């Protein structure tokens, strides 16, 4: 069971994080200010830290750069009320692994936590991704399902790659938009759904067991069984 440290000064938000991550089966501990949080992060053994950007006694940016300076490479999910691009860049540059803007939907936060935990566990150097009979050759940019080559657009390939890297995990529309297009605004309409729909028609052809599943209210998941 993964251990998670939530460094968050607002009690309601902290409660939310603990409840949500708890319901996903994680063991969550709470630190309510920057200094105490840093202390525990340095001494305890955690698999992930959620870190508020603005904290009493020591702000989030300092906490994460201090952690990295001490060679603690625990994944850090920065959470901030500041949605500015510069803020995001600062957060990631200081050593954060992902950046979530407040207020957030709790399942979005949980999905990001799971993806971060997962990223740690897997090797980034794979050249072939494989889920059931779906295969993605990253070198040749080629996708096959049950041995049949799929005719994918570059965008669809990147979408599938992201979903396969995080198979079995819920990925939200925002996460897909951020990782595939590299932008951080709210695309507003259901364009992501349309893109997934298109990909789905190519991957889950009739007669084959579906691999791309819709997770109600939050996003999508690529997995053999759902």
């Amino acid at each position: 069971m993964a251990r998670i440290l939530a460094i968050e000064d607002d009690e309601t938000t902290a409660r939310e994080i603990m409840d949500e991550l708890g319901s996903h089966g994680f063991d969550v501990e709470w630190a309510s200010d920057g200094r105490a949080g840093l202390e525990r992060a340095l001494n305890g053994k955690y698999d992930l830290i959620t870190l508020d950007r603005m904290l009493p006694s020591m702000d989030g940016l300092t906490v994460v750069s201090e952690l990295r300076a001490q060679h603690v490479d625990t994944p850090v999910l920065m959470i901030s009320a500041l949605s500015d691009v510069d803020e995001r860049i600062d957060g990631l540059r200081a050593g954060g692994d992902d950046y979530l803007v407040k207020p957030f939907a709790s399942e979005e936060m949980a999905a990001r936590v799971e993806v971060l935990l997962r990223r740690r566990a897997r090797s980034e150097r794979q050249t072939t991704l494989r889920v059931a009979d779906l295969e993605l050759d990253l070198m040749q940019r080629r996708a096959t399902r049950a041995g049949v080559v799929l005719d994918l657009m570059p965008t669809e390939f990147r979408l599938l790659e992201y979903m396969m890297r995080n198979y079995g995990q819920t990925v939200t529309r925002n996460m897909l938009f951020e990782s595939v297009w590299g932008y951080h605004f709210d695309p507003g309409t259901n364009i992501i759904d349309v893109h997934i729909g298109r990909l789905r028609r190519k991957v889950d052809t009739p007669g084959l067991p579906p691999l791309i599943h819709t997770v109600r209210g939050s996003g999508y998941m690529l997995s053999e069984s759902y």
Partner: protein
Amino acid sequence: MKVTEFSRTVAFRLTLFYSLLFAFCVVMLLGFVYWQTAAEMTRRVDQALFLEKNRLAAVSAGQLPQEIAKSVRRDRRHIYYYGLFSADGHLIAGNIPDFPEELPVDGKVYAITLDANDIQPAPFRARMLALRLDYGYRLLIGHDVQQLTEFGEIMRRALLWGGLLTILIGLAFGFAFSFRPLRRVKQIQQACEFIMRGNIRERLPVSNQRDELDTLAVTVNRMLDEIERLMSEIKHVGDNIAHDLRTPLTRLRAVLYRLQQQMAEDSAQRGMVDQVIAEVDSLLQRFRALLRISEIESNQRRAGFKELQLQDIVTQAVNFIEPLAEDHSIALSMSGVSGLSVEGDSELLFEAVVNLLDNAIKFTPAGGKVDVRVSQGAQGPEIEIADNGIGISENERAAVLNRFYRSGSAHHVSGFGLGLSIVMAIIELHDFGFEFGNANPGTRVILHCWRQHAV
């Protein structure tokens, strides 16, 4: 500027009025001088005549013809006239052939006009007096008033030309004086038009003359400052509400989500919860869009501007939206030149183009088309998006740029009406231009991707 425009200006009318008044005064003054001078000249002539009369009256009757002849000889300038007539009207001595019948013989001076029969050159004007002597003899003494006539002529000419010139100069200065105020009024008018088109940051031009136009412009500018302040205050209140409501709404959604997860897949309640979550999501999206606008408007992103390839951004946006067009059975096409670079924020420009494309697709019925074109216009790079959908009427065009406005004919289309507001905020941040072009039927929007104002 037309002549009628000049003639309607206050400066022109004032100048014309003053020059007319001045011309009138000049005429009055010259008239008075003429009148005074003529009276004085007449008085002197009359005095000379009286002196002459007294002198000749003292001469004895026998000596008179010789004395008269001597006087005529002595008068080298030929300004005096003498005549000694017998009772039967015969000239005995002097230089006047006939006695003018209209001259009373009473020793008083009269103004007499002689005709061509009497003397040359004619008509001849003179002042004359006549005396009755013994035996019915009559003595006539006259003085030429040619000088007075000439003086009068000079005066008349002076009055005519002087008056005319005054009025002409007045007109010329009237035009000259009204040119500057008229030009400034034009500038103010243009600035007002610009502000009315929604450029609330614009101000009226103020010169350094501190005249009444400036006073007015300064007052109007202060009023505009106040309007802008009030507008931003209202916007600020709106943003605060959006900001404050977002957190409780997010928590509400979290609870609903948990409820949803705990419910049986096919229960009737779950369907209801799904619906409520969708509503909350749409509310949250509105608030996010509102806050997004104020974030863009805060100008902080300008620091991150880079040189970008316009074609790349538009291609990316077209690729992003393309599946949506396909879903709506709309033919999305793109053409254009590459190598056009602009200064800007790639994410924001992408967002703006995506929003415009999204709108074009939403408001075009199935089977329609949306064309995107990137081109080098006369002044700089342009992005043109044209569809053959329901279109926007002329009088709706300004309104659609307002927040939340949606075309009356578009109520069946989903969307929050904030898309164009976000686009406008992005355009304003970049100092780009936005224009509705002509497309019949449909909508054509053109983005002018160059700085509209000098830095």
